[in-house]
């Protein structure tokens, strides 16, 4: 690969972005900026698929940002896989943004969006291909900043500013963690490059542990892993939808990339506790994520919580893989890692699709509150079909891709159970995964049912129409991929098996990736297609013979049903809420409006407070603020006191520092 290629690619991302900033006409600016991003992403995708994937590992030296270390791009299979992810989603989202970002036209700041989005994509590509910690950190922070500015693109809104702030602070703390983890490695190996890190193992177990925990803090924050996830449900809803799609689909995966890079590449032979920790966190993220998702009624916030859930699933795969690796079960480890990575791609596909769909809904109806939507399938059939495909995929319904990767994880877990000793952990993981899957079905039946089916609950919802082609094309493509990757998973699985070949025991059977007897998704898909198709034909035939007429929904004899009497999303979630009320902690407030003695209106409002947010982060924050207010007393303005400080300092130093 010629070493000038990265620069060319960077230029194709940045030049249109800068041009977009300069072009006055907002429409043209959009087309140039996002279109340029799409072209660059496509170029990157092609280059990665035909170049980097084949030639990996590729090394390209870079000018270092600092004189004391060298920088390089280092592209191995793992990097190439994530690059595909970045460019693939980047391409589709850029195309989508051409249509979607129209709503920012009226205001000047929309013109910065293409540059920021392109910068975000470029920095993510840089992060996964960085071969040393310095370039990695630069890319990482560029990514964080670019995404921060994209989150606050709507900065007139207080919520957007606040969300951006929470996000930026969280990610900054995370960067601190990553920095420390890297520095421990630097300290041990004396090298700044990833290849250098991998050569010398950390001998001190305490340092090794610290390295892992700091890395987990850093990457886990970015990924939205359970205890560090609090920024995610704030930032994703406030960002413009294409940005949410990129953030949720790709950016949080950078955290996963970091964890995989650390666990399987940089820390040679990590102890079993690391994998077990990740597995446990994965389960927690999965269950908490989906539970919080179920009770949301903000569409994008709900999707954001699902990102937490899916990151949990990915972590289950990765954590179990590390655990298996540490306990000498490399074949299961390989399968688990492959499953986890495959889920990374699949989650990117369907979550991007869902966010883009949510964007289309938002643009059509101007509300994110699903209680105000309904019946959109009529006005926006294409969006509806695509969203349904994404929902089936995220609920892991076969033969969609969400299932394909979870299936791989399951098979890995099952293979791990077979061994002696710690099988219980894997069984628990399987049960947890099953619960997560079941709850995801609940959530997405709720979403699709209340948003797209039934009757419109508001005027905006009934007036909504499908968006422009620029927005439909990416959604359609992603929907096709959701199905295609589910039916033909081996396209990706085989590649991933190659990437993870370092985990195999003695060469390892390459056939593990192809599901064993009875698991061929293609067969099942065909069987389903035949059965359902046949029955559909039968139904059509019978209906033509027997007749069909339209009538109102049966209301148990009550003829005046209105759309408002439909089952609401909150009611739909109630059974689950009831069971898990100990975790979800609903707070219901009731407000009454009286006119004289007559009750005019009663309003019930239920809020859910994040357990961690209320139990951990807010108290710590309040404590800090209280301390800060106390500290103001240090500066009351009296010069006497100030001089006293000096006197005291000198006396203390004289007496104690000799």
């Amino acid at each position, binding site marked *: 690969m010629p070493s000038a290629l990265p620069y060319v690619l960077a230029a194709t991302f940045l030049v249109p972005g800068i041009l977009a900033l300069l072009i006055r006409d907002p429409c043209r600016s959009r087309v140039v900026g996002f279109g340029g991003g799409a072209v660059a992403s496509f170029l990157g995708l092609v280059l990665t698929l035909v170049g980097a994937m084949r030639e990996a590992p590729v090394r390209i030296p870079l000018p270092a940002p600092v004189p004391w270390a060298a920088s390089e791009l280092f592209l191995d299979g793992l990097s190439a896989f994530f690059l595909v992810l970045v460019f693939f989603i980047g391409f589709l989202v850029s195309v989508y943004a051409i249509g979607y970002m129209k709503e920012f036209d009226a205001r000047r700041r929309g013109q910065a969006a293409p540059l920021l989005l392109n910068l975000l994509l470029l920095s993510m590509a840089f992060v996964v291909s960085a071969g040393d910690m310095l370039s990695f950190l630069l890319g990482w922070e560029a990514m964080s900043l670019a995404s921060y500015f994209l989150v606050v693109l709507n900065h007139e809104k207080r919520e957007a500013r606040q969300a951006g702030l929470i996000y930026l602070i969280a990610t900054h703390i995370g960067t601190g963690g990553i920095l420390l983890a890297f520095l421990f490695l630097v300290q041990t190996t004396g090298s700044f490059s990833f290849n250098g890190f991998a050569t010398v193992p950390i001998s001190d177990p305490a340092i090794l542990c610290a390295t892992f925990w700091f890395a987990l803090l850093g990457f886990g924050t970015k990924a939205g892993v359970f205890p560090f996830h609090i920024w995610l449900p704030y930032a994703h809803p406030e960002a413009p939808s294409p940005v949410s799609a990129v953030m949720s689909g790709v950016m949080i995966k950078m955290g996963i990339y970091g964890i995989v890079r650390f666990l399987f590449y940089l820390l040679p032979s990590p102890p079993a506790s690391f994998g077990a920790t990740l597995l446990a966190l994965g389960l927690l993220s999965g269950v908490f994520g989906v539970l919080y998702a179920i009770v949301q009624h903000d569409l994008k916030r709900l999707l954001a919580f699902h990102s937490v859930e899916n990151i949990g699933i990915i972590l289950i795969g990765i954590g179990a893989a590390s655990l298996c690796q540490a306990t000498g079960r490399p074949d299961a480890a390989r399968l688990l890692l492959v499953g986890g990575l495959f889920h990374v791609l699949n989650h990117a596909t369907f979550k991007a699709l869902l966010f883009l769909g949510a964007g289309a809904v938002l643009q059509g109806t101007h509300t994110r509150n699903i209680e105000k939507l309904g019946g959109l399938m009529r006005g926006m059939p294409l969006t509806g079909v695509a969203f349904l495909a994404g929902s089936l995929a995220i609920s892991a319904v076969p033969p969609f891709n969400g299932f394909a990767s979870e299936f791989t994880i399951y098979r890995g877990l099952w293979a791990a159970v077979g061994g002696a000793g710690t099988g219980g952990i894997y069984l628990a993981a399987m049960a947890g995964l099953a619960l997560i899957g079941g709850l995801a079905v609940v959530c997405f039946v709720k979403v699709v049912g209340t948003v797209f089916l039934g009757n419109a609950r508001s005027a905006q919802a009934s007036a909504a129409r499908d968006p422009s082609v620029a927005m439909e094309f990416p959604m359609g493509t992603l929907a096709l991929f959701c199905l295609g990757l589910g039916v033909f998973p081996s396209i990706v699985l085989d590649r991933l098996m190659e990437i993870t070949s370092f985990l195999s025991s003695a060469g390892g059977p390459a056939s593990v990736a192809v599901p064993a007897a009875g698991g061929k998704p293609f067969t099942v898909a065909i069987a389903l297609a035949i059965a359902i198709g046949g029955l559909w034909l039968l139904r059509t035939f019978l209906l033509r013979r027997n007749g069909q007429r339209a009538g109102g929904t049966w209301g148990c004899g009550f003829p005046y049903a209105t759309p408002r009497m439909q089952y609401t999303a909150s009611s739909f979630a109630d059974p689950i809420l009831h069971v898990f009320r100990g975790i979800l902690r609903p707070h219901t407030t009731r407000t009454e409006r009286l006119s004289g003695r007559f009750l005019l209106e009663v309003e019930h409002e239920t809020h859910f407070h994040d357990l961690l947010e209320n139990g951990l982060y807010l108290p710590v924050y309040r404590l800090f603020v209280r301390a800060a207010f106390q500290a103001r007393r240090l*500066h*009351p*303005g009296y010069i*006497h006191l100030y001089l006293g400080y000096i006197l005291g300092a000198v*006396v203390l130093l*004289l007496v104690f520092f*000799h």
Partner: protein
Amino acid sequence: MNTITILLLLLGFHIAVTERIPTAIRSLAAQGALLALLPFLASPRPLWRAAALGFATVAVKSVAIPAILTHAVSRLEIKRETESLVSTKTSVLLTGVLSLSAFVACARFGLSGQDQLGAAAGLTLLFSGLLMMTTRVKAITQVIGFVVLENGIFLFGASSGSEFTLPIELGIFLDLFVAVFLMGILMLKIQRTFTHMDVRKIHTLKD
């Protein structure tokens, strides 16, 4: 030499406990005069150098600065009392404690004999000056405290025999003089703007 040190300390003590500003200023001038003797005792050769330094000391410390302060007192028409945040007893006690800690500190740093006495005496004077700045209410008493503090440093400098080239020594005097001069100007401005000199009441700038 030791006699002068003791005298300086006593004068410093007097300034610290006196309740009248003019008295304090007079003692300050006396301190300056005593300090002027130190170059002759500590490093008498070459004589012209000692004479120059002594002259500068007298000029700045016993003439110029007391003049500025006296002028300020008369211009400002302030009451002659030195108001303090703490009682005289407490401030005596504090001075004692600080003096003790100065000796302890010098001992802990491994100084002994003449070094210890000189350093500790200098530090004591310095601390009592700083204590005055810390506890006195009026701006002018703070300036007096500052001069006492400087005197403490001069005392130690002279007793430890440190010497620099003449331009630097003169620069040091000039700096001190300008500092006190500026403080004087500021005091006048403060008096004009705030119509009082009570530093306690000047605390708008705070967190």
